[in-house]
């Protein structure tokens, strides 16, 4: 029995970290549905390099928790094939920076088999990948390339920022009829715990979350950046009386345009925070969407607080590359003071 699940017996909820909630989510879905299989590099006996699949091999066996050869295109291509037989593959890419060999399979086929076949074929599959910086990792281990996948029609892209959402969004992704790129913010894998129900539940893939209500400015973010955005909001509330609304997008594709624009109509100001490079990051899409939908409400230029248009540096400089609370606060103040 899963070490996480075993503690659930007789309880309604447990205090889990985000990565434990992923493990618990996989355990829950695999228990409910025999067609769900996990495959990838080191996901079996080793339980995943971040322990996201810990104990699943012991619980469900080698035919459902599968250590594969080291080949990302093979893992994703095989998963597309598995999905054609009624199975629900949940392949893991060990790090987002190592996904690129699978890119062809993802964009040429996973994303398009439905439209190519006019709905006759589809690819229900969830590709999990840890992403983002801040963990002092070697090169290629800190990428945030969500925009590559958001840009590709036919894919859904999800990124949780809390343990509760991680389990619920993962369940919704596994139940979804279309391929989902499920991006896990590894910086906050173990940052904090919260109550996570033992029972199955879903968090909708079509709703952003308002993490903090406010009236002066809307801050849009997701994943690991949600935390510094909330810290910045609290700091500014206390130091400058600025009332910041923080929106956690949760699902990056398709965007919840309604929540995004409703918030902006209320505040008239926006800052978008992401780790990815600024140019053609998701911030560009959000800013344009706001202007299309709510231009008349706009009171200040929309601010993007993002990574540099440069490769992620090695770890001695990553704190300068990533949006920190100080950068977020400064950007919010500039926008509010405009």
């Amino acid at each position, binding site marked *: 029995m899963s070490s996480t699940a075993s503690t659930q017996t007789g309880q309604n909820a447990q205090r889990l970290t985000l990565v434990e909630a992923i493990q618990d989510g996989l355990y829950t879905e695999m228990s409910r549905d025999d067609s769900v299989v996990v495959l990838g590099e080191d996901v079996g006996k080793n339980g995943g390099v971040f322990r996201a699949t810990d104990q699943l091999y012991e619980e469900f066996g080698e035919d459902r928790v599968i250590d594969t*050869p080291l080949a990302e295109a093979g893992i994703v291509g095989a998963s597309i094939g598995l999905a054609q037989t009624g199975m629900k593959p949940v392949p893991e890419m060990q790090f987002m920076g190592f996904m690129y060999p699978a890119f062809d399979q993802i964009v040429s086929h996973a994303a398009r088999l439905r439209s190519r076949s006019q709905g006759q074929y589809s690819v229900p599959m969830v590709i999990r990948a840890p992403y983002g910086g801040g963990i002092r*990792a070697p090169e290629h281990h800190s990428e945030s390339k969500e925009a590559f996948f958001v840009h590709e029609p036919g894919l859904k892209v999800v990124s949780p920022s809390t343990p509760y959402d991680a389990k619920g969004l993962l369940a919704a992704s596994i139940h979804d009829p279309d391929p989902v790129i499920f991006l896990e913010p590894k910086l906050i894998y173990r940052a904090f715990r919260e109550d996570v129900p033992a029972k199955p539940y879903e968090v909708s893939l079509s709703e952003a979350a308002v993490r903090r209500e406010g009236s002066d400015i809307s801050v849009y973010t997701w994943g690991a950046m949600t935390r510094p955005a909330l810290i910045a909001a609290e700091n500014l509330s206390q130091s400058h009386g600025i009332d910041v609304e923080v929106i956690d997008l949760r699902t990056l594709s398709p965007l919840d345009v309604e929540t995004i624009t409703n918030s902006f109509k209320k505040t008239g100001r926006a800052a978008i925070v992401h780790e990815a490079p600024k140019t053609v990051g998701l911030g560009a899409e959000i800013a344009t969407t706001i202007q299309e939908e709510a231009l008349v409400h706009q009171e200040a230029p929309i601010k993007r607080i993002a990574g540099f248009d440069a490769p992620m540096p090695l770890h001695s*400089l990553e704190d300068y590359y990533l949006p920190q609370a100080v950068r977020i606060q400064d950007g919010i103040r500039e926008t509010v003071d405009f």
Partner: protein
Amino acid sequence: MNMKNEAGSKDVPAAVREDSDLVQVLDAEGNVLPQASVPDISDRQLLELYETIKLARHFDQRAISFQRQGRLATYAPMTGQEGSQVATSLALAEQDWLFPTYREHAAKYAHGMDLVSLFEPLRGYRDGYAIPDDVNVMPEYIPIATQVPQAMGMAWGHKLQGKTDTAVLCHLGDGATSEGDFHEGLNFAGVFDVPAVFVCNNNQWAISVPRERQTASETIAEKAQAYGIDGVRVDGLDPLAVYKVASAALEKARNPGPGELRPTLIESVQYRFGAHTTADDPSVYRDESEEEAWRDRDPVDRIETYLYNEGILDSDLESEIQDSIEQEVSEAIETAEQTETSPDNIVEHVYEDVPARLEEQRDELNRLREKYDDGAFSEVLE
């Protein structure tokens, strides 16, 4: 897998059984095997081989310890693999090129990189990847197998320009043979007959996945057949055997005989004595007894015994070498700890010239650094 050797006293890993097609010079203790031919190598070169392997072992132990002390970030240990790394690099001519992965610390050092530059990326500085013009080593490859087609391309470029006196030696692991880039690189190498030697450091484990799970082939060397090139299996814990095989492959890359193709795939049969990296715990997925059988064939002990047997090494010289190695490694870490860089470095070298938009991003960062202070940027994000 549990076949006993003739003495019947120890398990010999099946992959290095002496009755297989494996090239070996030394037995498990370091004595020359009957019928084995020792490579043509001077006493001075033998001592260089020994000293470099000893240095590599010490570097590895210190690096693991520095990582635990927080002086280095994630490190990929090479214990058990140093002999093959050093032997392949010492087989190179100075003009030859080396394509290393993240584990080939000793191979890089033995082909001219200094220890400081090995430490710098592990401390978060790219300075160590700015490899001097006179050292023919590419910055390490971390995405698996991506170096294989590139090494082929460099060898091809040399050949197209008539420089077939320059060979390219490309390292890869057993896991890398599962990636598409491995196939594409070796296929091109055969089709275009380039002066390249591909060394697969088959250490039996790709993190937690055993060699048997990478391929249904009996050996990795036999994959060479499919590309029409030579494949050789060598005892990767036998530095003299590796030197012999690598030298021959490099010579063939430069000057193939009639009907011979230049490229070779060498399967250097090894064992990863330690963890995949300092972030990994092998006790979760493999049996420690497996390691013991390989420890009996430790490359450091084998080359040491050989040199003692030959009268090239004695205890005085051994301790003199050890002292000098320890000093070299401790000086290198101290120097590496002086390396500093400015946050401006984030925007530098992305292109030859910094685009205006990136200059603006740098200026904005520096405005914030002045307005607040650098400490504000090192607050923990989580």
